């Protein structure tokens, strides 16, 4: 029986899909709200954002062991962030669908509700005490920041259908990208400082290279260039989306090592003396 942390096997790509869809859908709704205020025809974009969020929740439905009891998810709003996420999704769909008839103010309301939904998703991860990479408090801003950057990326991918990419959208996208870069860097620094399973840090180190190239520098360069060459806006968006989704997929399916087991002291056996503690598979202090 292994005492070292190992990749959790309870949440797979289906659970990751919820975080991918929820984050990108929320970000896209926010950009759609800004686009609506700017007078752009964003109805299809709102529908796409709602479909992403619904798709993510659908993936979760596929993962649960008793799918026909899904309404039981609403039973614990007092302490469960999963229940709160389920409640938060309701006004997102209500306002989002109403926005198709009532216009930009309702899109803005849907985007606000979606931000609450995305916050709940971040808190879901943070409350998972068994997974050191998730319970790190910076996971909440990371979920928010990367979701908004992914949504901005999707919006830029849709700009060919709206005419040229608006300058405000490029600027907002660049701000979101820088925000994601800052939060991602802070998240990793805090995880390293606090101590974490060695495998978690190794996976994140390998991922960081891909995220830096695909999810940060390429989209940033393309977004800056898109001020002059509009065709590069969708490229910037696609890179940002791919980088963000890869990051979150990794966080759920590859960097989610369990706590493992630790001893504060090794026992005195027979005539021997007690010894120091141990925390196999961890960086930093022992126990």
């Amino acid at each position, binding site marked *: 029986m292994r005492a070292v942390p190992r990749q959790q096997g309870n949440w797979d790509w289906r659970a990751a899909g919820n975080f991918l869809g929820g984050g990108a859908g929320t970000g896209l709704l926010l950009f759609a709200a800004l686009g609506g205020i700017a007078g752009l025809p964003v109805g299809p974009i709102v529908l796409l954002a709602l479909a992403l969020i619904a798709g993510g929740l659908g993936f979760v439905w596929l993962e649960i062991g008793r799918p026909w009891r899904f309404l039981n998810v609403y039973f*614990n709003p007092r302490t469960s962030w999963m229940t709160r996420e389920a409640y938060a999704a309701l006004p997102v769909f209500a306002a989002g669908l109403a926005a198709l008839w009532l216009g930009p103010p309702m899109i803005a309301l849907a985007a606000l509700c979606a931000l609450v939904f995305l916050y709940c998703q971040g808190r879901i991860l943070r409350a998972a005490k068994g997974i050191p990479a998730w319970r790190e408090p910076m996971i909440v801003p990371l979920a928010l920041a990367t979701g908004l950057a992914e949504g901005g990326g999707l919006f830029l991918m849709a700009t060919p259908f709206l005419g040229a990419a608006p300058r405000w959208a490029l600027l907002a996208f660049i701000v979101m990208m820088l925000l994601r870069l800052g939060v991602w860097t802070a998240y990793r620094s805090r995880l390293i400082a606090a101590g974490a399973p060695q495998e978690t840090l190794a996976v994140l180190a390998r991922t960081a290279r891909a995220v830096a190239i695909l999810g940060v520098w390429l989209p940033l360069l393309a977004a800056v260039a898109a001020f002059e060459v509009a065709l590069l806006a969708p490229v910037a968006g696609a890179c940002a989306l791919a980088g963000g989704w890869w990051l979150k997929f990794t966080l759920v399916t590859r960097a989610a090592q369990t706590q493992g087991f630790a001893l504060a002291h090794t026992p*005195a056996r027979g005539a021997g003396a007690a010894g120091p503690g141990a925390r196999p598979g961890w960086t930093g202090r022992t126990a």
Partner: protein
Amino acid sequence: MTRYVMVADLRRCVGCQTCTAACKHANATPPGVQWRRVLDMEIGEYPDVRRAFVPVGCMHCADPPCMEVCPSTATRQRDDGIVTIDYDLCIGCAYCAVACPYQARYKVETPRFAYGEAPTESEAQRHEAGRIGVSTKCTFCVDRIDSGVEQGLTPGEDPEATPACVNSCIAKALHFGDLDDPDSNVSQLLAENQHFRMHEELGTGPGFYYLWDRA
């Protein structure tokens, strides 16, 4: 009040896994599911190597993270500290499994049997369809405790009111009892020995103590 806890004397445990087998027998858990496990830990590097056998499982925490995250309220805590799962409420989301720092929870998606797809006679009799697709874990043999207490027996002292793993332990390494009773076996063991709880820094208040040396 009553607070049931388990105490494992790491000096005595020999890693025989009798508790593991007793648990499987008592609770009819399928292959791959071990509510009671004993870790075989090697610590240090040659020539300074130590070995410890460490019983683990649900710690029946005072502040259980599994209960906090459970969206369906299937996971609950009794007044005596035992953390339970209502299999009829659980949706099988496994959020509790990722919230538990002790890897104590299991979810089995399809029936599993020891020898292929068909159950043995014993497995056929004891298979519980209600446990498929939901979260399961150690219950501290709560049915035995409740039944024993109803008969006026004392959990931890009378075998009929004591978890199967504790009853089976060949080295008297595992103990069970009421922490709130200063005269109980577990209270006395904790008073007479140095002890720790695993991952105490996470604030879960585990109800599982490890003895490692004399006080």
